[in-house]
């Protein structure tokens, strides 16, 4: 996992997380006008990406299961939030709605995960998750009045108050996700996950219940992803299949983790910052290139920096 301790006692990742939390909480106070503050907006995006990435990190980096279907969970979380809110039972940043969205994604992950993870290895599993995303997208588009069909659902944007609530919420999510991943990696469970990643047969021979660990990791990853979808729904006040079930929502966490270092706790944080920086820069100066950049990045990074930024620096 990571070497080095800070001040001799506190492990480095934990120190970083705490520092992050402290800075993150104070920052909005320092900014003049948060509503039009670019920094707050960008940080909100970054925190969202971090959460998304940690979800994938847990499944792929630590458990070794490459899931290419994160967009299924993202979209599910978003749609559950939207449908619940529209039906009158939920609300704007209503904790119940939020939790429900997360659990819906988790449930989906368990339902799909058990058959998929028990039979498919490696590439086949990736394909299966890819197919899952597509199936879900079609179902949602065909959903008619319940899901708003191909144009999606509109949410009352009058509920918008300020951007600070998004900022704090996404900060909390990012911290929560990172902390979860960190605690898992430090625990025996985490050791089991890494064992599953490195050599399934040996892990099974040591008595680890492979399927259980894979499904749990998958489910936790889905939970975070679903929460991200829900947040995005609250931000855009509109959910539609092309936006929310887009493959981009799988691509971003992949790039971020690959950039920053798969299978590390801080890697996704670094990756999210770098990626957002690159995106914002390219939006400024090369607006057309922006979507192409993602693909180029993945390819370049995998070829030249196979471990990601963090791994290269730590010389793993």
């Amino acid at each position, binding site marked *: 996992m990571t070497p080095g301790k800070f001040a001799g006692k506190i492990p480095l990742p934990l120190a970083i997380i705490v520092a992050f939390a402290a800075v993150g909480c104070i920052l909005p106070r320092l900014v003049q006008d948060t509503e039009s503050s670019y920094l707050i907006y960008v940080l909100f995006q970054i925190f969202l990406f971090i959460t998304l990435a940690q979800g994938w990190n847990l499944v792929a980096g630590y458990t070794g299961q*490459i899931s*290419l279907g994160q967009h299924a969970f993202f979209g599910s979380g978003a749609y559950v939030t939207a449908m619940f809110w529209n039906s009158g039972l939920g609300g704007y940043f209503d904790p119940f709605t939020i939790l429900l969205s997360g659990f819906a994604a988790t449930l989906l992950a368990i339902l799909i995960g058990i*058959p*998929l993870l028990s*039979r*498919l290895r*490696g*590439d*086949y599993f*990736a*394909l*299966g998750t*890819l*197919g*899952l995303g*597509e*199936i879900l997208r*079609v*179902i949602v*588009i*065909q959903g008619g009045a319940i899901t708003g069909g191909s144009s999606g659902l509109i949410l009352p944007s009058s509920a918008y108050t300020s951007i600070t609530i998004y900022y704090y919420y996404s900060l909390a999510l990012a911290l929560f996700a990172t902390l979860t991943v960190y605690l898992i990696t430090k625990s025996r469970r985490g050791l089991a996950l890494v064992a599953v990643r490195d050599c399934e047969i040996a892990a099974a021979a040591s008595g680890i219940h492979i399927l259980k660990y894979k499904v749990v990791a998958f489910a936790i990853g889905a939970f975070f992803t679903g929460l991200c979808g829900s947040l995005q729904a609250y931000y855009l006040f509109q959910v539609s299949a092309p936006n929310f079930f887009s*493959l981009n929502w799988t*691509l971003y966490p*992949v*790039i971020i983790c*690959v950039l920053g270092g798969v299978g590390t706790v801080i890697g996704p944080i670094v990756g999210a910052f770098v990626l957002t920086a690159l995106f914002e820069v390219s939006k400024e100066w090369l607006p*057309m*290139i922006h*979507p*192409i950049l*993602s*693909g*180029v*990045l*993945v*390819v370049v990074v*995998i*070829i030249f920096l*196979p471990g990601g930024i963090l791994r290269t620096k730590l010389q793993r």
Partner: protein
Amino acid sequence: MTVDTLLQLLINGILFGTMYGIAAIGLSVIFGIMHIIFLAQGTMIVLAAYCCYWLFKLYGMNPYLSAFVIVPAFLVLGQVLYHGLFRRVSVSGRFPSLLIAFGLMSLLENLMSVLWTPNPRAIDAVYSSYGITLLNLNISFTRLMAFIMAIVAAGAVTLFLKKTLLGMAVRAASENMESAMLVGITPHRVNSVAFAIGMALAGLAGIAVATVYPFDPGFGFIFSLKAMIALALGGMGSLIGALAGGILLGAIESFSSYIFSGAWADAIGYAVFLLVLMFKPEGLFVSSSNKD
């Protein structure tokens, strides 16, 4: 449903399915040697379709004749791509290769979107609406040509693999890379050949797509998925299986979209895919002579 309708649907499905089949054969060749599932196959097919389209639009070149330009070009492209992208990571396992394919797909799709706009394109040639009527059934000319191209392609690749020295080297490497190395076969050489063949097949499939269907950059991903479904149905190791899988998928889609509707046909296809992956990953057409 009358027998006529049944037969018509079946014919449509088969003819259409051969396009999936060509894509799947390309995937199969690449998978057989490099053991990676080349996610970007569909996107390469769309790229070829654009090439075909522009050759037609700008130079008035007959799409079928442009095969003589596009296929060799894609052969070379395959070599270049392999040496540029996959060569270094071919030893590090499947994870990096899978992600590179994923990144490449994303890259190309967006690039094409930016260069040529996301609007659908179609080739409208004199013979686009030609049809032949055989036994009361309507067979579209372009689809028939696609079918013929698929059969020819499958035949050519099989001949190559069976009769030429290079082809036999490729087959040897796919069975056992280490033993192949022992007899003097260079892994990178056969990998790049396999990849080049995969790309050439993509080029051919692109021409088929361009003549039959309106296409846009986003089509690539869907086509990749369909090709993978065809591959799963037919069995990952066999070329004929890939073609057969494609035809089967075409038939399934044809009937599904008649009985339900277009979008559900897609979902049914994916559902079949998941089911086959889970319960019969070696493919539906496994015969005892196939080694996997």
